[in-house]
């Protein structure tokens, strides 16, 4: 089949260093991957095209790019599955949220800095055992998904928070943190929680699920971040807008069966947070004017006692 590759190019050393798209028409097999196409372009058509790849088997994590706007590994993306529009087009761009070095190659330094920031190594306490540190299989099972991470950067590429805030630790580093927080042999959770609870940590995730959707290895970073939130709160770190928001939300559903939208922002910011309370005033005035204010007296849903009973029964179950 004839495929039109629409590849985003950028060469900082060129005399005209501007990002642009370049088209390559290639005759490909039905079974070909996007990486097969890119390698053939480089070898047969245009030797100046830069890309990064190694194993071609979705193990090394080198070839993460954006295909038709969404991150993934070029080596496990079949062209036939992503052809779009007229003329059998596939658009390939470098991974997002990382600086472009050249064409499809991005600089991973900011990625590694964040992974390093979560101290991704085992920090056990006590005397070193004579052989290795042992852990029961059943305690390690929940880490099976997260150890599958190949650090390809697909989740970071498409993270919607990193797009607006380079300070956010991001899905890859946070999933890596969970790998050690959840390891029964690790003993530095208090220190880890402190970092995770800070600005740029677990509370800054928007739960948009983009990382879950694009991860080629089923790591589900966002689900790990949610588990970390719970662990951070259990450890007593509850003096954040995030923790207050989660608690206020759950309390509202428990007591009335549904969301009290008036109280939620006040409880999240904390009523004594004068600056935030003043910050809410313009919105309150705008909403009031537009008639977009939730009922002042928040009534419970009919039969709310059944909801409360479920809370009491299930709150202790996980």
């Amino acid at each position, binding site marked *: 089949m004839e495929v039109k590759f629409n590849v985003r190019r950028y060469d900082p050393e060129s005399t005209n260093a501007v990002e642009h798209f370049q088209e390559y028409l290639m005759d490909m097999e039905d079974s070909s991957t996007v990486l097969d196409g890119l390698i053939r372009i480089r070898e047969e058509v245009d030797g100046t095209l830069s890309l990064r790849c190694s194993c071609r088997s979705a193990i090394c994590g080198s070839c993460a790019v954006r295909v038709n706007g969404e991150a993934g590994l070029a080596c496990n993306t079949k062209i036939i599955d992503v052809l779009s529009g007229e003329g059998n087009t596939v658009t390939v761009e470098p991974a997002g949220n990382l600086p472009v070095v050249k064409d499809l190659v991005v600089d991973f330094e900011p990625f590694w800095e964040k992974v390093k920031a979560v101290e991704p190594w085992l920090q056990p306490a006590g005397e070193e055992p004579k052989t290795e540190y042992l852990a029961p299989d059943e305690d390690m099972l929940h880490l099976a998904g997260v150890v599958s991470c190949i650090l390809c950067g697909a989740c970071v590429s498409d993270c919607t928070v990193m797009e607006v805030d380079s300070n956010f630790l991001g899905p890859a580093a946070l999933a890596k943190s969970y790998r050690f927080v959840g390891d029964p042999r690790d003993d530095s959770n208090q220190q880890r929680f402190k970092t995770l609870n800070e600005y740029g940590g677990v*509370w800054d995730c*928007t*739960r948009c699920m983009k990382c879950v959707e694009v991860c080629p290895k089923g790591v589900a970073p966002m689900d790990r971040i949610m588990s970390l939130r719970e662990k951070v709160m259990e450890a007593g770190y509850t003096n954040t807008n*995030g923790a207050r928001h989660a608690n206020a939300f759950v309390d509202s559903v428990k007591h009335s069966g549904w969301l009290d939208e008036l109280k939620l922002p006040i409880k999240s910011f904390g009523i004594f947070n004068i600056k935030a309370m003043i910050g809410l005033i313009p919105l309150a005035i705008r909403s009031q004017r537009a008639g977009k204010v*939730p009922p002042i007296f928040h009534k419970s849903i009919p*039969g709310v006692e059944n909801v409360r009973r479920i809370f009491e029964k299930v709150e202790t179950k996980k």
Partner: protein
Amino acid sequence: MKYAFYPGCVSRGACPELYSATVEVCGILGIELDEDALKGASCTGAGVLQEKNQRLGDTLNARTFAMAEQSGNPLMTICSTCQGVMSQANERLLADPEYMASINEDLSEEGLEYKGTADPKHLLWIIAEDLGIDFLESKLVKKLDGVKLAPFYGCYIVRPSKALGFEENPGRKQALEEIIETVGGEVVDFPGKTLCCGFPILTINPENSVNMVANHTIDAKDRGADAMVTPCPLCHLNLDGYQPNAASARKREIDLPIIHLPQLLGLALGIEPEKMRLNKHIISTKKLLSELAISP
């Protein structure tokens, strides 16, 4: 066609216009809303409650599903977030009969049992799949010719695609664009249409949240959009309510009305804007309505 109507918290709270527009539009399209079946249903948990205790969230949603089953009608949502949270809960319940049985045990005291037949569906999908685009077209009284509309889905109605049944229903990926085109609008495509509006971190990291609002509304505006259309009231709240903050953060005018999906349908079905509270938005819809030659 009759549905057990699940309005969600927001259409009964800060977005009353969504509730009125839905009722008006469904009336014309022959979608009969059973507003009593789920009167006692709780909030879905919106993913927030699930952070703390997923089982608790699944139990509350199984309870809602059981109530819908009892009514004998399929469940209709009007919020991307409700839809996504319900679809994910349903996927977990259906995948594990033991889990479902133990959750049903907790529901039994109330005389409820979820049998597994609820198929929660957003109004967007109901129109595209159950009613059909041809039917919608046959009901239109005013084509909104020439109006440029940017779609904005909301995360939970596009991800995770597996739980949302995208494989079985590939049309769900483009349903909003299809409806925009059917009512005569021109789709303004932009990469932000399936990204986060920033609402979930509104009280946690307001600066990031406002930056998301700014990026999406400015991008759509600069690509020529007259308005943005969303099936998610949470996206609406942030993109509409915080647009003035986004404009002042970027020191420019944005002025992009954020229209709920039923409001868009209503305009093409000839419903008076006031009945759908189009005059009750933070970002005024006046200019949009006058371009469409509709008196507000």
